């Protein structure tokens, strides 16, 4: 099953054919700078991410990546990124003074919250360094080792990874296996607060550690001259301090519907994550279609589906555009709550971080790649619009399935929080622009 690509004759046959004939003659008979070009080739990629959330955070992230290919197939790359984040982040507290509640026999109330979501303002900078080295081992094995370091005011992450790729079936199938370890340290300003307290108690001045290990297995297969598919799975174990020290959970008086207090959030000290990612890249003749689907599940009961579609269309050798659609949906973590019932006993763990809630993200974007006249290097400009919203329990798989059976089956017998109400917050709109420039030399 091979598709034959037929191209119409160019409208100006003589000029085009003459060009080819002249090129052939002059190229073959002339020495050129080929000797200088031989050996390693290097490329430098730079990008600037400008990211803005409506009335919340703004991020500016310049990144530089240097890649060098060596004659025997080795490759070195190093990437430096620097983010400047300013703005507001939701604390997890509910919008105050605007909750209408109705009690029911189950004790769960439903309500609509209007008004502003409480946020804390912050200003942070983050520096991230990544490096990796690819080394062929013989003709069918390739190893890659990498290191990672990032640092911000109250967070530091150091990690390393190793990967081995084996080509089999005349390189039509590649099997990749890898493992990584990461050690993170959290050192909140003013010390680490105790979980589920009002935050006035003593804090722990020590650094809080978080250890992450992961293993991955993947297979890539060349299906035909124009089709490539890959499937990979990752298993990640996290342990240590997994809580967000600045996030809080509201306590709600269900009779008045008012927030009567805030507690620091608290998350379990371990998390086991899994995901499978399937990717297909198909060459349609002129366009290239990238499809991917990821299924993710963890023992916090957070499951997610991610669908991603990109279609790249090349107008000519120097210009292309690529529309992008992404849809993401997740179920909430079992200890996610919109707010705690003030009179109920405290659960073991609770978090109102919307990122652990019944979240949905829809992304629509497009990338344009082009060259500036005859100047070297390729420019890319990408604009994306992202809308994040929290699902109400009636929508999709959110909340409903996270019953006690599942929780107890996979986790401990820890008590889960009971949400005081259902929160409806306006969706968060995010706009990001990435300007990139790549050059080879």
């Amino acid at each position, binding site marked *: 099953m091979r598709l034959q690509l037929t191209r119409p004759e160019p409208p100006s046959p*003589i*000029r085009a054919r*003459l060009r080819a*004939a002249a090129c052939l003659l*002059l190229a073959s008979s002339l020495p050129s700078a080929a000797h200088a070009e031989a050996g390693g080739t290097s490329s430098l990629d730079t990008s600037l991410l400008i990211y803005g959330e409506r009335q919340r955070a703004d991020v500016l992230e310049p990144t530089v990546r240097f890649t060098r290919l060596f004659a025997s197939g080795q490759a070195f790359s190093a990437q430096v990124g620097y983010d400047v984040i300013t703005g507001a982040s939701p604390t997890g507290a509910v919008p105050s003074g605007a909750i209408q509640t109705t009690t029911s026999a189950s004790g769960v109330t439903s309500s609509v919250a209007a008004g502003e979501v409480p946020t804390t303002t912050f200003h942070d900078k983050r520096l991230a360094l990544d490096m990796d080295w690819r080394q062929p081992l013989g003709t069918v094995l390739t190893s890659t080792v990498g290191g990672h370091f990032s640092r911000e005011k109250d967070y530091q992450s150091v990690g390393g990874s190793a990967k081995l790729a084996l080509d089999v079936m005349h390189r039509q199938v590649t099997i990749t296996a890898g493992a990584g370890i990461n050690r993170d340290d959290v050192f909140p300003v003013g010390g680490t607060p105790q979980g589920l307290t009002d935050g006035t108690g003593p804090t722990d001045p020590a650094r809080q550690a978080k250890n992450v290990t992961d293993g991955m297995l993947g297979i890539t297969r060349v299906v035909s001259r124009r089709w490539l598919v890959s499937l990979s799975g990752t298993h990640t174990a996290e342990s240590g301090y997994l809580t967000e020290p600045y996030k809080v959970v509201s306590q709600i008086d269900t009779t008045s519907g008012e927030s009567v207090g805030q507690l620091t959030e608290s998350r379990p000290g371990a998390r086991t994550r899994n995901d499978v990612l399937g990717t297909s890249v198909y060459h349609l003749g002129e366009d290239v279609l990238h499809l991917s689907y990821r299924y993710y599940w963890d023992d916090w009961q957070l499951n997610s589906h991610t669908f991603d579609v990109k279609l790249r269309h090349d107008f000519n050798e120097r210009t292309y555009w690529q529309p992008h659609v992404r849809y993401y949906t997740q179920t909430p973590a079992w200890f996610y709550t919109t707010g705690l019932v003030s009179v109920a006993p405290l659960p073991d763990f609770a978090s109102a971080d919307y990122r652990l809630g019944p979240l949905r993200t829809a992304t629509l974007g497009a990338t344009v790649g082009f060259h500036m006249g005859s100047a070297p290097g390729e420019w890319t400009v990408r604009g994306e619009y992202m809308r994040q919203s929290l699902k109400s329990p009636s929508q999709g798989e959110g909340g409903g399935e996270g019953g006690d059976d599942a929780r107890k089956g996979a986790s401990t017998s820890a008590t889960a929080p009971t949400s005081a109400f259902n929160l409806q917050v306006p969706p968060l709109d995010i706009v990001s622009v990435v300007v990139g420039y790549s050059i080879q030399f």
Partner: protein
Amino acid sequence: MSLTRVHDAWAFRFVAMASPCELLVDTDDRAEADALGRIAQAEASRVEAAYSRYLPGNVVHRINHAGGAPVAVDDETALLIDYAAACHQMSGGRFDITSGALRRAWKFDGSSRVPTAAAIEAALAHVGWHRARWADHVLTLPAGMEIDFGGIGKEYAVDRAAGLIAGRTQHAFLVNFGGDLFAAGARVGDRPWAVGVDDPTRPGEASVYRIEIKRGGLATSGDARRFVLHEGKRLGHILDPRTGWPVEDAPSSVTVLAPTCMEAGTLSTLAYLEGPGARAFLEREGVTFWVL
């Protein structure tokens, strides 16, 4: 041979291929201009020696005197012949390196002497690339036929010299061999090179056009210097190998800008061979041109 200062550039001038030649280098460095100029001169002389049909012992001479026997040629010549064959094919036979016999019949000396029909007929019997056998570096011409790289040799020398010089300098330069030229890059300050196109009626005396280019090959075809007057008509020296006659109602000068000098030269020749259709041809091809 001379080296002079012209408009902030060094001009290295010499004579080769029976034409005035020059290399302009956009630099203050006299020594560099001199060294590059010698490269241009050496290349022009080399191409002339290798492909002039007047020099005994070279490959063209061997082919033209083989008397019907096959002649094996070197790689470079093979490439040139390939190029000529491609041009013959894409021009429907108008471009032909075997039209030498015709050129002997016609004398373009500005007089009104025109060869007889019989003489043209006889010459045509020895013209036509389709009669040649060309495969795998071996060319076999029927006895009495000749090849002549006159139509592409100068342009080839320009592109070759430009290629050699480009590997030796970072400065912008312009190679001009008898009016066929190649400009390699804008001058300092992003200024273009200014090229004058001769008035066909007063060659060498006045320019009718000033063309500004930064990069590319420029070549002109026309009857500026060599023609015959026949029945009141001015017939240029470019012959249509299919009829044996000069192209009628041809423009007096066709200048084309193309990525290389070879392409410019071939396109201007092909346009000229279209006669009154020259302008339409060039418009169809979508190139930059100046027709007089």
